[in-house]
């Protein structure tokens, strides 16, 4: 079992890193979006190795499902073409250096962390998370639903096509 856990972790970790790199490297936005699905699924696998089964299912449903469909819809709506390749300028070299510095500082921070014994009081199953949400965290739970409602209304207002007379009003 121990070996199996290790293998599962390393496979998922490598998959996550490779697909994340593909998101950044691909010049076609649709290919980037597809690699992002791979990254989300690999993170869902990492949640599974942590025994967070419910969160893993939610990750697949919400991220790999809903959010990616939204991304693909927008990419196809905007009808984008491939980005042309251009030589890296000073800004991009600086950005690269900055993210490499970020990588090393984050990893050194991570390696400095002390691994506590993994003695979780409760597991990550749907029933146990439901227990938490409907007792201690009822208010944040309701606020999340309010947030989603407000976001939905906001999205409709921002993205709707304006009538010509309204645009004239805005210009004036």
């Amino acid at each position, binding site marked *: 079992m*121990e070996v199996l856990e290790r293998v599962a*972790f390393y496979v998922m970790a490598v998959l996550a*890193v490779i697909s*994340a*790199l593909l*998101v*950044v490297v691909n010049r076609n*936005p649709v290919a*980037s*979006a597809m690699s*992002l699905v791979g*990254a989300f699924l690999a*993170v869902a696998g*990492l949640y599974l*190795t*942590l*025994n*967070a089964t*419910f*969160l893993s299912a*939610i*990750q697949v449903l*919400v*991220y790999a499902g809903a*959010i990616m469909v*939204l*991304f693909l819809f927008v990419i196809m*709506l*905007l009808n*984008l073409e491939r*980005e042309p390749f251009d030589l890296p300028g000073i800004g*991009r070299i600086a950005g*690269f250096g*900055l*993210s*490499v510095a970020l990588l090393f500082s*984050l*990893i050194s921070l991570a*390696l400095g*962390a002390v*691994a*506590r014994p*993994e*003695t*979780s009081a*409760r597991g*990550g199953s749907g029933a*146990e*998370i439901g*227990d*938490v949400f409907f007792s201690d965290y009822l208010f944040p739970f309701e606020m*999340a639903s309010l*947030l*989603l409602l*407000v*976001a939905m209304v*906001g*999205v409709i207002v*921002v*993205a709707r096509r304006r009538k010509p007379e309204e645009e004239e009003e805005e210009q004036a």
Partner: protein
Amino acid sequence: MITVVDYYVVASILFAIGALGFLLRKNVLVMFMSVELMLNSANLVLVASAKSFDLARGSAFALVSVAVAAAEVGVGLAIIIALFRLKATVDAEEITNLRG
């Protein structure tokens, strides 16, 4: 033995890749995808840490952050659509209205 430190390292790499994409790419959509990647790595740290305390509570935290991410993606993509209607481009270097 896989410990929480291994998860931290993976999350660090994912976060750095997200930052790399955000800084290097010019397509606003791909920049947004990189932000999602960074958000995901933060969630991973949250859940991995929760393993040593109370996984149910940590998962609940992560679940709320997923809900926030879903709302954020909706609003962000709506803004990108509005931006595209206005400018007919998603190139971050051509959207310079706020530049003095």
